[in-house]
């Protein structure tokens, strides 16, 4: 098999895809759902319900505010208990609609039949509008509002749609299961997105550690002209947007630019299914597949979870956190966030929850840099992490800007590979944030 990959940097952490063989199962409805209004990149949605309002599954509860924003829908039926600040995965309190669940009554407009609807009847504009109405965001983790990606500005030419089915983060298997169990929806969703973009070509990129998904999608893609499947080398961060474009099309997104600038749009494979449901079944985005895993937890699962379900409930459904669990990661082990507690609700961006045992949860004590150059070799952006770390330590922000600290995508390869356990990424984040702030201030003048 011809495996493509990106050219510079990357690491190969232990894959630990413990839940890859577990079929998707619907999680129980929560008693009370906490639905954040800011589940996406950009401005949070504005609530359109009030305390005491009755809502159904799929009822609009927040409208997108501004250009980059997304609508939020209720994932449960019941009564709005409050609109209040709730801690999210980043540890901050953010506004959320809290709903007391009563039954499971769906909006009648939603087509709940399991029949595959292959025919695409909507045109370009209608599809983009539908994505906006349905609150579709990128389900890979960045939660970028999908409709924005498909409003291609005048003068930009797009020729390829890339479906990101890499799932390069260790442990996570939600995309893998979606591909196995909902391959037809993935392909129809991809075709809808191709229509929205007006392109003839779509490539589904899958890492070679999912041969079953590659096989099933390659086989079924034969019925969908224009869609091909590309097997990719198992190398983190293969699923990072810029790296994926480089691997598949050998195009390099310039620093500070978007995939659009090199003629492509990238969407996650789970998003393709959400797009299918939004366009063909009139179903807004209010549930997603979440991997619940960990080396010690007795039951590993891939849950279909309603947004707003507290994570504790998923852990309990797997037999509870085992003795000695010291870290709860929201997302993958390379880029996910360690949560302050497990009452945090699932959002559109929650791809998985990993329970880490205390033997692996602590960082090693940092030692002196031995200049082994492994961070430089591992950086997929071609930066020099050791140097930016030092510059951050000594507050040399202008030097850090010259060393392109702002190009860091925080993939964590440098810190993962560092034998001296230096807090490289911590310091680079500081440098990146400061450089961005300085740039903003400069542009204001």
């Amino acid at each position, binding site marked *: 098999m011809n495996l493509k990959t990106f050219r510079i940097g990357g690491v190969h952490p232990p894959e630990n895809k413990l839940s890859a063989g577990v079929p998707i199962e619907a999680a129980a409805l929560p008693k009370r759902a906490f639905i954040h209004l800011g589940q996406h990149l950009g401005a949070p949605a504005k609530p359109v319900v009030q305390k005491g309002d009755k809502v159904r599954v799929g009822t609009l509860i927040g409208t997108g505010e501004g250009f980059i924003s997304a609508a939020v829908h209720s994932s449960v039926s019941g009564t709005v208990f409050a609109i209040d600040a709730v801690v999210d995965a980043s540890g901050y309190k953010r506004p959320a609609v809290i709903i007391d669940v009563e039954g499971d009554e769906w909006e009648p407009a939603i087509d709940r039949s399991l029949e595959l609807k292959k025919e695409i009847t909507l045109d370009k504009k209608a599809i983009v509008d539908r994505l906006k109405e349905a609150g579709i965001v990128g389900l890979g983790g960045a939660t970028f509002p999908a409709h924005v990606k498909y409003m291609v500005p005048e003068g930009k030419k797009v020729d390829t749609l890339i479906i990101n089915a890499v799932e390069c983060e260790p442990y996570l298997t939600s995309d893998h299961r979606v591909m196995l169990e909902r391959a037809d929806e993935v392909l129809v969703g991809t075709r809808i997105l191709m229509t929205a973009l007006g392109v003839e070509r779509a490539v589904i990129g899958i890492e070679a550690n999912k041969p079953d998904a590659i096989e099933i999608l390659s086989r079924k893609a034969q019925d969908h002209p224009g869609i091909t499947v590309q097997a990719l080398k198992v190398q983190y961060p293969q699923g990072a947007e810029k790296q994926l474009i480089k691997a598949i099309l*050998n*195009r390099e997104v*310039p*620093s500070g630019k978007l995939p659009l600038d090199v003629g492509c749009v990238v969407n996650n494979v789970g998003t393709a299914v959400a797009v299918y449901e939004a366009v063909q079944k009139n179903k807004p985005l209010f549930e997603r597949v979440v991997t619940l895993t960990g080396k010690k937890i007795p039951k590993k699962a891939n849950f279909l979870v309603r947004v707003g379900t507290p994570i504790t409930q998923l852990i309990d459904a797997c037999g509870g956190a085992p003795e000695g669990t*010291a*870290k709860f990661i929201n997302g993958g082990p390379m*880029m996910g966030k360690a949560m302050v507690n497990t009452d945090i609700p699932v959002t559109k961006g929650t791809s998985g929850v990993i329970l880490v045992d205390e033997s692996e949860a*602590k960082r090693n004590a940092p030692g002196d840099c031995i*200049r082994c150059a492994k961070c430089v070799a591992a950086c997929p952006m071609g930066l020099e992490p050791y140097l930016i770390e030092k510059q951050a330590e000594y507050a040399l922000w202008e030097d850090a800007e010259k060393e392109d600290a702002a190009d860091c995508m925080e993939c964590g390869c440098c810190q993962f590979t560092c*034998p001296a356990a230096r807090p490289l990424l911590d310091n680079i984040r500081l440098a990146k944030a400061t450089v961005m702030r300085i740039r903003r201030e400069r542009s204001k003048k």
Partner: protein
Amino acid sequence: MSNTIVSLSPHAKGPLSTEKVMWGVVIALLPSFAFSAYFFGIRAIVVTLVATIACILTEFVIQKYLMRTTVTAFDGSAAITGILLAFNVPSSIPIWQMVLGAVFAIAIGKMVFGGLGRNPFNPALLGRAFMLASFPVDMTTWPIPVKTQWLWEMGKKVDGTTAATPLGFFKEGIKMGGSMGDLVAQRPELYDYFNLFIGNVGGCIGEVSSFAILLGGIYLLYKKIITWHIPVFYLGGLALITGIFWWMEPAKYADPLFHLFAGGAMLGAWFMATDMVTSPMTVKGQILFAVCGGLLCGLIRLFGAFPEGCSYSILIMNAFVPLIDKYIKPTRFGKEVNYG
């Protein structure tokens, strides 16, 4: 939930640690150690152990009593310096000189700059340069390989304890006006590739056996402690310069294969030039560093005052590392734009 750890990503840790890197290098040096013990007898073992212990102790004392900082003397880096320093001296070196060299290597070569990761020069090579300048006679008196000489034979003087190293013999011979052909006829065993490869020639403790060094080098590559660039380009640079002169005047210059296997080039290329602390951070920089080092080594061997130039070539290139790192940057993603 009270003992939940909240930290920034990444939450996964790579397989390497500083200790694993350092002790990995020590393991990679074991084949050379075994071969040197076979060829130079128990004295090679004693000298190596003395240097290693002296280095570790020096670092320990400086960290604990002078710097009053965390003691990391046992992380393996001081042990590497000790072993490499011992590998760069003749096995007949007086023990007190060895100890002095080891103390110098750690105290002046490493700790005055602040310790691990901060020294500009390879401490072992600095120690060797110090010993060569201070004890020129003892540092250039080479015992011939004696096969195994065991502990109970230590007191015995072995007949004909001094011998020329291959590099030294041919350099002197050429200087006296001899031609390569005559010199090889005179001492064919010194120009025997098999002897050179296995290590059955005079020389420093750890440098003689290219075979053993290559075994260690392969281990380092396998463990991903080093990359292939520096050794390959260093030896390539050396082969290039010696090859050019050999091609022009084969009667006056030895062939490049001889230069690769004779003297300290193998040890230097695999274990000294690859020293992480004192080599560049980017692959492009490492290639420049290694090629220049190899060329310098060849030039010193062919035209310098000493028959061997490996250690000086690396020390000189060490001095250029900050400059190389400042000006040679890795290829940034998205800077040299390719629109496909």
